[in-house]
């Protein structure tokens, strides 16, 4: 569905430096591929590059991106626009900042529909054509809203983070997309909303048979969702493969450290036995960082 080959990205601010080097992976149809790494490792930029949405200061200096057999690199801005929301769509981390606070949810749908071959030029919610309205309602119903009309009339600040994230998924589902890019879609949500959004993404993927690229730093999300995993570290792919293999036998030291950190939150280690919560060996960089004991006179006061 999606193939990224030898992608190179460069930041132009100051002295140009490569922030993504030789990144190659693919996202098969109907499966979830997780892109994992710490913040600043280049995973979000890779995601943006796929849809031609790189910020001005970042330039693609090499590599090819192919979506559904079509080379994205060669596309004109108009074709790219048609691709976004047509074949592929993206949902982002912070639902609160992705919506315009002075526009109703309906206006957001109208804008998306106009941008993607709906009824351009008619950008007033009052005259939203019935066919568009029906599409919006259908989409909202699909992500689990029982009364879509109430949501359409709501302003973003009247909805919770989890609800807004579902609206964002609904916007992405307006067209029959083949590829969904989700950049940390649940990081800002509480655990219960997170579980619901992940279930929603999983069901949607199954129903539409689309490929999903899920960018995350949370190995719990990987364990819950992934078929394949791509691990990025400092702008490079250090390891990739099937999720079961990665959990059973991680090859790279960074992957191992990630898994160890993740399992320690559950009081588990690589073996199956519970080692007791809180007995993780300290990270090397903090081993030397023990805060000094509080002086006696302070403690006693």
């Amino acid at each position, binding site marked *: 569905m999606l193939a990224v080959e030898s992608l190179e990205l460069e930041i132009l601010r100051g002295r140009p430096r490569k922030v993504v080097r030789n990144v190659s992976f693919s996202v098969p149809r109907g499966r979830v591929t997780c892109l994992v790494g710490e913040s600043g490792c280049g995973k979000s930029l890779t995601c943006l590059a796929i849809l031609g949405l790189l910020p001005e200061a970042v330039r693609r200096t090499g590599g090819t991106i192919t979506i559904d057999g079509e080379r994205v690199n060669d596309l004109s801005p108009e074709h790219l626009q048609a691709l976004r929301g047509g074949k592929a769509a993206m949902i982002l981390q912070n639902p609160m900042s992705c919506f315009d606070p002075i526009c109703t949810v309906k206006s957001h749908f109208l804008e998306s529909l106009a941008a993607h071959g709906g009824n351009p030029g008619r950008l007033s919610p009052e005259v939203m054509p019935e066919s568009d309205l029906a599409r919006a309602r259908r989409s909202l119903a699909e992500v689990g809203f029982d009364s879509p009309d109430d949501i359409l009339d709501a302003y973003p600040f009247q909805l919770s983070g989890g609800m807004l994230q579902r609206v964002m998924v609904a916007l992405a589902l307006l067209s029959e997309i083949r590829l969904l890019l989700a950049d940390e879609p649940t990081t800002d949500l509480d655990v219960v909303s997170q579980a619901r959004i992940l279930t929603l993404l999983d069901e949607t993927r199954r129903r539409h048979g689309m490929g999903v690229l899920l960018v995350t730093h949370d190995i719990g999300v990987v364990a819950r969702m992934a078929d394949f995993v791509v691990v990025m570290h400092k702008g490079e792919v250090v390891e990739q493969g099937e999720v079961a293999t990665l959990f059973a036998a991680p090859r790279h030291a960074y992957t191992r450290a990630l898994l160890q950190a993740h399992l320690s939150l559950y009081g588990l280690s690589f073996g199956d036995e519970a080692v007791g919560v809180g007995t*993780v060996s300290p990270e090397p960089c903090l081993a030397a960082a023990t805060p000094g004991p509080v002086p006696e006179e302070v403690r006693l006061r």
Partner: protein
Amino acid sequence: MNLLEARQVAKRYRRGGLFGKRSEVRVLEDVSIALEEGKSLGLVGRSGSGKSTLGRLLLGLERPDEGQILYKGKDIFTSGKEHFRRFRRDVQVVFQNSLGAVNPRFRAVDIVAEPLDNFEPLSAAERRCRVAALLEGVGLSEADLDKFPSQFSGGELQRLCIARALAPRPRVIILDEAVSNLDMLIQVQVLNLLRRLRDNSGTTFLFVSHDLRLVADMCDSVAILADGHIVERTSPEKPLRDFSHPAFLELLDAVLPARPDGSGVFRNILSQERTA
């Protein structure tokens, strides 16, 4: 001894304003919790359950509409300036959004030294030296002293905020979702750091979180907050694994699995762990 305590507090906010309908939102109703000296308490609930509001009340940032906040057994608002000052110094906080919790125009040294400037003015050299030691305590280095917030990563900035909270040598630290959004490796580093603090200096912690893994791991006792009420809390007769309130079960079942093959379900780990 109860170091810090909320006694039957209630808090309401007004919603709506100039144009809309005015209505009252009851955020907390008849909530009592106590932080025992040297122990860690976990306050768990979904977004909007009122847990951050309770944190703000315990910090004295807002006044409760009903009930009292007691520090060392004395009401913080009616026991005089000296007691309030003592309380302010001894109870420190780390918020979730570290970028929003620091002044972007301050250098690291000034950020961390701010509570020191309030409570114990030092000479410039002493001040720098104290801050350098604090930075080292959280895994940052002396070289970071003159950096601005924008030059730190999210995890580094969060550790800077922890260093600031530690600066006046507090007795209580309130962590409001302070680690939940950090990268995996950094999260574990910060938890190890907090664990060490707890063991070495007997600091009392309040973990405000929606993540049961964290709280089960770090806390001596746990209280579940839902819709402004404490619905369940640990006691000698009732450990965390025996909790049964729907609000708790919802949080428990939402914890992501440890492994892709379906093993390492947190619910099972919790029951095994505590019976073992």
